């Protein structure tokens, strides 16, 4: 079976790489909201290398899976967590053989950049780790609202919930939580100062008008998986792009945007 797949793939790829105009290369990529900046930069670079038109669709991972389930014409799916991808796989929305992790992210606790909100000892760089005592600080009245991705659809919100539950703070902090539709919205809330703190990825906090207090200890590494959708009509082209994501050039861009390399 695998050999058959590989052969089909090969016969599909070969004519394409030879005469690119025969079948126009068009890929629709659904990517987690946290990948917005990095994927836009990668797409720009990729389109210079390959005569391929990339259409990018960003939303919370849970939303992307729902879109795919309802028939969105997506070729490639990149989520911010394994759980969303597991759901997609369970419903046969993706080709399991094509699934692979391509980058790692870390969760950080952020506060507005202005010194308006008082903060626990701020870690100067995102290398510091937030202790449970720091998290405890969030129960102080100075933190009126804490932005978090909606745990039902936003992986960053789920990771944050896990960490807060582990610290035993989830029930105490729940009334303060403002649930955002995706992790970028969490960032926006904190940048605008409407929330005194928020949980986002290191990649979101990078280069933004926020201060990262430190890394939030997650239950495990946050690995981003990627897979080709089972309904893709451009599986071969999607494969070429997913291979490109593992190249030095693409990984470099991802690191620039604050992601961490796969161990």
């Amino acid at each position, binding site marked *: 079976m695998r050999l058959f797949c590989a052969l089909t793939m090969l016969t599909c790829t070969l004519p394409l790489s030879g005469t690119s105009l025969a079948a126009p290369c068009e890929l629709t990529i659904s990517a987690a909201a946290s990948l917005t900046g990095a994927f836009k930069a990668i797409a720009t670079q990729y389109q210079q290398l390959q005569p391929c038109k990339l259409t990018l669709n960003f939303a919370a991972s849970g939303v992307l899976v729902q879109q795919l389930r309802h028939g969105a014409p997506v070729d490639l799916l990149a989520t911010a967590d394994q759980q969303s991808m597991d759901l997609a796989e369970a419903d046969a929305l993706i080709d399991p053989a094509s699934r692979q992790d391509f980058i790692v992210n870390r969760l950080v606790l952020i506060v507005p950049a202005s010194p308006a909100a008082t903060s626990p000892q701020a870690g100067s760089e995102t290398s510091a780790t937030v202790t449970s005592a720091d998290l405890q600080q969030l129960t102080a009245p100075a933190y009126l609202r804490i932005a978090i991705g909606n745990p039902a659809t936003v992986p960053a919100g789920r990771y944050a919930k896990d960490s807060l539950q582990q610290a035993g703070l989830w029930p105490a902090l729940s009334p303060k939580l403002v*649930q955002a*539709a995706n992790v970028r919205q969490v960032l926006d809330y904190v940048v605008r100062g409407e929330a005194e703190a928020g949980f986002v990825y290191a990649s979101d906090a990078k280069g933004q008008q926020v201060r990262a207090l430190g890394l939030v200890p997650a239950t495990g590494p946050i690995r981003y998986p990627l897979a080709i959708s089972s309904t893709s009509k451009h599986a071969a082209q999607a494969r070429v792009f997913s291979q490109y994501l593992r190249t030095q050039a693409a990984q470099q861009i991802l690191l620039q945007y604050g992601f961490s390399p796969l161990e």
Partner: protein
Amino acid sequence: MVWSAIELSLWVAGVATLLNLLLGGSLAYLLARRDFAGKGLLEALLTLPMVLPPTVVGYYLLVLLGRHSAIGTALESWFGIRLIFTIEGAIIAAMVVTFPLVLKPARAAFEAVDPQLVQAAKVLGLSNFAVFCRISLPLAWRGILAGLMLAFARAMGEFGATLMLAGSIPGKTQTLSIAIYEAVQAGDQHSANALVMVTSGLCIALLLLAQWLTRRSSAASRS
């Protein structure tokens, strides 16, 4: 989740409509009875929320009333009020979006009042306020009410501006339409179906009521 969303939506739409009755009603009376410089521009500005996409209205409100804005800063330092992520924010969003729906029919209703009746009342010595209470309002109230119904139904369904200003906090600012959006996104078909049914039912009932009132008011003005 379903009940808190319904309760919240009814509350937000109710308060917004009531405030619009006071504000929109008095402005409509002013526009129908008086001419002044810049009237056309004022009317255009007041109608704008009906034409602009709700997200644009929401963005304006977010920038105007947010924490870093002059109004937002003043409200917070003087009264400790924050509009973003609060039910007050949801009410303001619903109010602004539905304001033209109250203003337009109310103005038309006030204009439809026979000026001869007003003049006669004045000749007979009634004050301006008494003319309003005893002549204009009784004759125009059906038209005003029809506008209010429409505004209420629209406020029940407000989504874009509300989401931008009030966010989505279950039990606090998560109104019906936002709860539906969240349920669909999370793949929770059961809640989504229940919420959609309730919203549709409520809105149909309101539209029927508005229709009936308009018919009665036009019948009354004919007779």
